[in-house]
């Protein structure tokens, strides 16, 4: 890190500690047992100066400056692994780790890579630094056309919140187009916001930029309020998490479903359209923000198992113990920083596990994952033939024309 955090007054430690109570179940931190489960399960805990448990110990000793002066927090990928195993149910990810990032960011200690993503989000409404006017360009050549709410000027059943990477990232756009194919085949009455859509802001929030999150949420809230729809769907578990758990705190409240939940509810209509493409061995990676953060484990599996000839094989780490792809909590924008610190990539650990199951396909349900795991597969020996696909891509492949 370039500089130390701004020196804090002794009362700051108390103020910071007490601010942790504001999160749901935040007061549980008082009952921390110092069991160190959190630090042990943390994918980067082994190289953090201050993994969660030690942060709590030092805070209890009244020492916070060293904790916030360390760059440990930028190794946190907000994967909820610590929160999941905590016997005292302390909200470590949404509380302690996120608040710590907020303080470090306020003091100006922001790795340059992360800075760009935050500035882009502020300026263009997406962390990739792409033109906001091109947000719906992925759909430009599709027929029938993808209805954009501003032009369609009619109520729809479903508002599809497309999200940042699904809108812009060339690989993830394939997932977006696969969902388009399925929605069209099922005759779903849907629309997208197009250029009116902004980043959901959740990962920026978990990277410590709460103010930016609020700005983005307000913009999306304003866009939602212009149109009539019954529910929101999204392929992005991070957007899902924001819409479901964080936007309501800002008064932006709509029913929201992840695309796997939405499609699993329509399995009866979907099943007759799925044909056997031969034997396919598939293993499924639970995304942190679908699984641990929101407890959606079964709908993705139900969809996969509906594909004829598909054999679902579980990795040793599955459901609550799923391994993070490394993209959460700002990790998506800290690859260089984290590589410098760790010289390992979390995505490679996951791909190694997928290869060991003997699966042909690593199925995913989060837009961060196809590019991360495909890159990792290039580095892991034996992963040369591993195919990474979102569940909707597998469904679209299996669908009758």
């Amino acid at each position, binding site marked *: 890190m370039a500089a130390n955090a701004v020196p804090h007054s002794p009362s700051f430690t108390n103020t910071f500690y007490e601010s942790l109570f504001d999160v749901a179940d935040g007061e549980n931190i008082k009952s921390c047992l110092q069991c160190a489960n959190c630090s042990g399960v943390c994918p980067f805990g082994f190289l953090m100066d201050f993994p969660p448990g030690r942060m709590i110990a030092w805070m209890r000793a009244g020492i916070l400056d060293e904790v916030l002066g360390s760059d440990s927090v930028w190794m946190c990928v907000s994967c909820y692994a610590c929160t999941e195993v905590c016997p005292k149910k302390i909200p470590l990810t949404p509380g302690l780790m996120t608040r710590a990032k907020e303080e470090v960011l306020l003091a100006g200690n922001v790795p340059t890579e992360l800075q760009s993503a935050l500035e882009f989000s502020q300026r263009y409404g997406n962390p990739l630094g792409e*033109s906001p006017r091109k947000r719906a360009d992925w759909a430009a050549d599709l027929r029938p056309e993808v209805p954009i709410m501003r032009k369609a000027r009619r109520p729809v059943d479903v508002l599809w919140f497309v999200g940042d990477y699904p809108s812009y990232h060339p690989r993830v756009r394939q997932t977006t187009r696969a969902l388009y194919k399925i929605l069209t085949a099922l005759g779903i009455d849907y629309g997208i916001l197009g250029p009116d859509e902004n980043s959901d802001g959740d990962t920026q929030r978990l990277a410590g930029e709460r103010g930016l999150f609020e700005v983005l949420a307000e913009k999306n809230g304003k866009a939602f309020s212009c149109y009539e729809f019954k529910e929101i769907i999204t392929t992005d578990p991070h957007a899902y998490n924001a819409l479901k758990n964080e936007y309501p705190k800002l008064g932006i409240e709509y029913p929201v479903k992840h695309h796997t939940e939405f499609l699993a509810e329509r399995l009866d209509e979907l099943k007759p359209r799925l044909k056997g493409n031969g034997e396919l061995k598939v293993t499924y990676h639970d995304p942190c923000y679908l699984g641990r953060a929101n407890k959606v484990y079964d709908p993705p599996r139900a969809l996969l198992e509906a594909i004829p000839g598909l054999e679902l094989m579980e990795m040793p780490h599955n459901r609550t113990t799923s391994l993070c792809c490394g993209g959460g909590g700002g990790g998506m924008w800290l690859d260089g920083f984290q590589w410098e610190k760790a010289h390992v990539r979390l995505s490679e650990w996951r791909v190694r596990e997928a290869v060991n199951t003997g699966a042909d396909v690593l199925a995913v349900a989060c837009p961060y994952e196809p590019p991360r795991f495909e890159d990792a597969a290039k580095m892991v020996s034996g992963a040369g033939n591993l195919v990474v696909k979102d569940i909707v891509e597998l469904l679209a492949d299996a669908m009758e024309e």
Partner: protein
Amino acid sequence: MTHILVPVKLVPDLVEELQIAGSGNALDMTWLRLIISEFDDHAIEQAIILKERSGGEVTVIAPDQEGMDDVLFTAAAKGADRITKLSGDFGEGFNNHALARAFASAVEGLAPDLILTGVQGNNDLDGSVGPCLAEYLGMAYVGYVAGVSLEGGKAVIKKEYPGGLIAEMEVALPAVLGIQAAEQPPRYVAVSKVRQMMKETSIVEIDAGDLDPSGGLDVSRMYLPEAAERAEMLQGNEKEVAARLVEIFKEIGVI
């Protein structure tokens, strides 16, 4: 106390494709997105680094362009002491001669010891602002500066030359420096801090009066690069294309 003045401007953001206006001699401003000139952003950073290191005050001054308030409040959140806006007809595009004259007239009241501005901007058609401003103020100018420190009444600067050469030189103050790069990349300020600044600080407005663009240039035509018909695309499969290539190389005597 050293008073550092940082004149900045907004330039077209190249994230959007640029379009030519109906007049055929300017950019279409309707859809143009503006962004602080990257070099001006570095000038702000360098000024704040100097303030943190040697004390002093930083004033950021800018023409009243759409979106400028956010840029100024962000500068204040980074540590600028005063943010100032020149009001005048800065809506539909203006040249650097007019802007430099407007800055120069404001400088007299502000009495800075040092002026830092970006060495260039992506829309500099009539030269960059720094040298113009120095000329109007009768001050020395050094451009392509990547490092400044203050010693007594002098600035010790690092000036970049092509080929990786760097010269260290002393400049008597007051002077104008064209900043190529700050000593560290422009810092990040949290959105909440910028929002707080919007409540706590106000932008001082200075009337720039009528703008005087004389000495600039008249654009007769602005156009996208036009494709010339000099390339021949070879058709066919790999073997046919390769055979044709060999023939061409022989014809022109390369092989």
